[in-house]
Each structure stands twice: as structure tokens, then as C-alpha cells.
């Protein structure tokens, strides 16, 4: 099979291909091999041969049961690939969280005012600067005192930025987890753990395009993140996406 094409390869390159598949190369050497693969069919054949040789060893890892929302996430991503702006599906019952909670909606309303204030300053700045790439902005406020804590910016580029407006106290055994949910999604999707006071860059490649009114929130979770893949702790900051014209 593939080995026939790698016949002329040096023993060193066979071994390099083996370590690449085995996974023992560090990040720099992995990237170096990846860069070579595009132009070197013999090395590519050696890598494929190693993939085939070692494949039976995948059986040594215990299978795990994916959470039910994983396939939905995959489907949403496929939708986003085919449709640039996916139409919201009929809203699913909000089984994971009581969306009718009054403090939550109060916080969102306050977030709206805070967003308006930030947008006003953005508009002033726009007078002086070339048009920024930002298309969506969210101000995340605390549900209890409505204090703005974070700003989310999403541009046309494929990333979302979470920017702290101040420092936040988090218990030592807890962490802040960043979530988003658009209308029609079956549940919130984790965007990762957040270090208080630090900016977080989220590659949005794995997310469908941002929608107006899309919900963003930070919840208090166990130090390694929510064990269920869904928010389990209290909301510390929450807000909705507003399109920046």
C-alpha cells in the first residue's frame, strides 16, 4: 500500500514520520513535519504507513459516551458552513436554565444600556479612525449590581475577544467559564475558561456566525470547567450581542 511510495526515504525520515504519528514531536517539530508534508509525497506516504501500522492501538483507549449536545454542535457547524447566516430554528424549551428569571432579564436590560454607552464612545472614536473591523459588541454586566465587567468584541475575522474592564474575585477552587447561545441553539456552548483580569481570544472557527441578540455569559464553575459541558454554576456576568453599524 502506502509503503511502496516511501521507498526512497531515509531511515531518519521514516523515524521522523513515526514520531510524528506517535505524537512525541514538540510543537515546533510537528509544524516542521506538517510544512514538509505538502510538498513531499514520500514523507506523506511514510506518515500514512505509520498511521496504518499504529491504528489498532487506538483500541487501547476506553470509548467514552459523547454528551448529547455534541452532535447538535456538529450539525450547527455544518449548517454554518453551507449557509453564511443560519436561520434560527424554532426555539427549543430552555431545559438547562430558567430563562424567565427576573434578575437575568434585568441584567440584560442593564447590559443594553451599558452597551449603548460604550457604543456612543465607539461612534465618537469612529470619527477619527478608519472603520474598525468589529461587527458585534457585548457588554457583560453582573446580574446583581449591573456593573459592567467585560466587553466582548467580534469582528469579521474569525475570532471573539473577551476584554476585562476590571479585576474579578474568583474563589481558589473555582473558575469563570465563558459561554454563548444564539436564538434557536439547543443550549449554550463553552468558549473556554477565563482568567480574571485577562483578555481571552477565542477562535470562532468552530462557531456559527454571530447573530444579533446572541447571549454571552460568564458562570462560576469548578476549577477545571463545567463537568457537564453546560453551565452549572451561578451567572457572574451576562449580556447580549449588539450589531455595530
Amino acid at each position, binding site marked *: *500500500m*502506502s*509503503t511502496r*511510495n516511501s521507498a526512497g526515504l531515509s*531511515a531518519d525520515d*521514516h*523515524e521522523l514520520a*513515526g*514520531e510524528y*504519528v*506517535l*505524537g*512525541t*514531536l*514538540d*510543537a515546533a517539530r*510537528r509544524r516542521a513535519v506538517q510544512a514538509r508534508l505538502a510538498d513531499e509525497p514520500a514523507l506523506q*506516504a511514510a506518515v*500514512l504507513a505509520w*498511521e*496504518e*501500522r*499504529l*491504528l*489498532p*492501538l*487506538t*483500541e*487501547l*483507549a*476506553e*470509548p*467514552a*459516551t*459523547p*454528551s448529547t449536545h*455534541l*452532535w447538535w*454542535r*456538529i*450539525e450547527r*457547524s*455544518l449548517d454554518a*458552513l453551507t449557509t453564511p447566516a443560519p436561520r434560527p430554528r424554532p426555539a427549543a424549551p430552555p431545559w438547562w436554565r430558567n430563562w424567565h428569571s427576573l434578575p437575568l432579564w434585568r441584567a440584560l436590560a442593564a447590559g443594553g444600556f451599558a452597551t449603548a454607552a460604550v457604543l456612543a464612545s465607539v461612534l465618537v472614536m469612529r470619527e477619527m479612525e478608519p472603520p474598525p473591523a468589529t461587527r458585534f459588541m457585548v457588554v457583560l454586566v453582573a446580574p446583581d449590581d449591573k456593573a459592567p465587567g467585560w466587553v466582548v468584541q467580534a469582528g469579521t475575522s474569525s475570532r471573539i475577544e473577551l476584554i476585562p474592564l476590571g479585576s474579578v474575585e474568583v474563589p481558589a477552587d473555582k473558575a469563570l467559564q465563558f459561554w454563548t447561545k444564539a436564538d434557536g441553539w439547543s443550549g449554550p456552548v*463553552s468558549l473556554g475558561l477565563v482568567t480574571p483580569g485577562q483578555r481571552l481570544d477565542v477562535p470562532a472557527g*468552530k462557531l456559527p456566525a454571530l447573530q444579533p441578540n446572541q447571549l454571552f455569559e460568564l458562570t462560576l464553575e469548578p476549577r*477545571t*470547567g*463545567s*463537568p457537564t*459541558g453546560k453551565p452549572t454554576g451561578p451567572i457572574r456576568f451576562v449580556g447580549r450581542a449588539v450589531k455595530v453599524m
Partner: protein
Amino acid sequence: MPSSSADFDYEATLAACARGERSALQALYAQEGGRLLGVVQRIVRERALAEDIVHDACVNIWTRAAAFDPTRGSARGWIYSVARHLALNAVRDGQREVAVDEDTAATLDARAALEAWHDMADAFAWQASAGRIAHCLEQLEPVRRNCVLHAYVDGFSHGEIARRLDAPLGTVKAWIKRSLAALRECMT
């Protein structure tokens, strides 16, 4: 319950994905999702990240299915290579390995190497592995076999294997080099 991998036509499934048949990817996910998640989770050691990677792998499989060439390898192997590749990138990009003077380390820790070498216990139930690999793994000394398996199954770096086996880094690197050479010779 997924059927056995022998009864599932991976190649036809990838071809259907390439034609844009969503049901084919769903069937593949039902067949391999749990095993893929198991393989990835073992490497990245974190559930949420593992699910993110399986998500990315499925999207990758969907978008790249047309590029899969059945004359160059098995469809199932290709699917796993996509997922493992993403998982390994995630753990390697996230870590900073400390560079060690390999020669010095190897000399100073020759004794530790000797002790690790005599650790004959198998860390994996590799004997059940299908095909030629089991026969060829059997030819390796247990400690070298464990190196290969910790790397492939656990996604351990050289440094992590050295710590796990309590052996010098340079020695572990040499063991893996020789094990790969022996496996290639045995399996060609």
C-alpha cells in the same frame, strides 16, 4: 450501539460525506463518535476539550472527505489520523518542554535507565491489539513497548514518558527511536 468496524463501510461513508450527504456523517458519528472521543480524551485529558476536538474532527472530516484517497490508506485510519492530529496539536501547542542537555542527562542518569529497563511490568493490555502490531510489540522489551504505548495512547511527550518511567530523557528518546525502527522492520 456501534457495529463492529469490520461491518461498517468507512470508505463508502466518506464518499457520501464528500457528496454532501449529512446522514453519512451522522452514521459515522454513531459508529465511531464514542471511540474517537475515548482516543482524544485519553490524549488531552480533559472532557470539554476532548469534545471540542471531536467536534472539530467531524467538521474536518466533512469538509475534507473529498480529499481522502482510498488508494493511499484506509478510510478508518484517515478518520483517526484527523482526530489524533488535532488532539496532539492541542496538547503540544499548550506546553513548553524544557530543553535538556541530553548527553549529560543520559550519563548522569545511566543508573536510573538501568532500573527503568528492568521494570518489566506492562502498562497496557496491548496483547489484544488486532493484526500484526501485537506480534511486533511482543518483540520489543517491555520498557520500550511501554514508551511507544504511552506516546501513542496517552499522548505523552518524551519528557512525560521519562517522568512516568523514571528514566532519563535522552534514554527514552533513544528507546523510542529504536522501537520505531524495530516496528517498521517487523511490520514491513
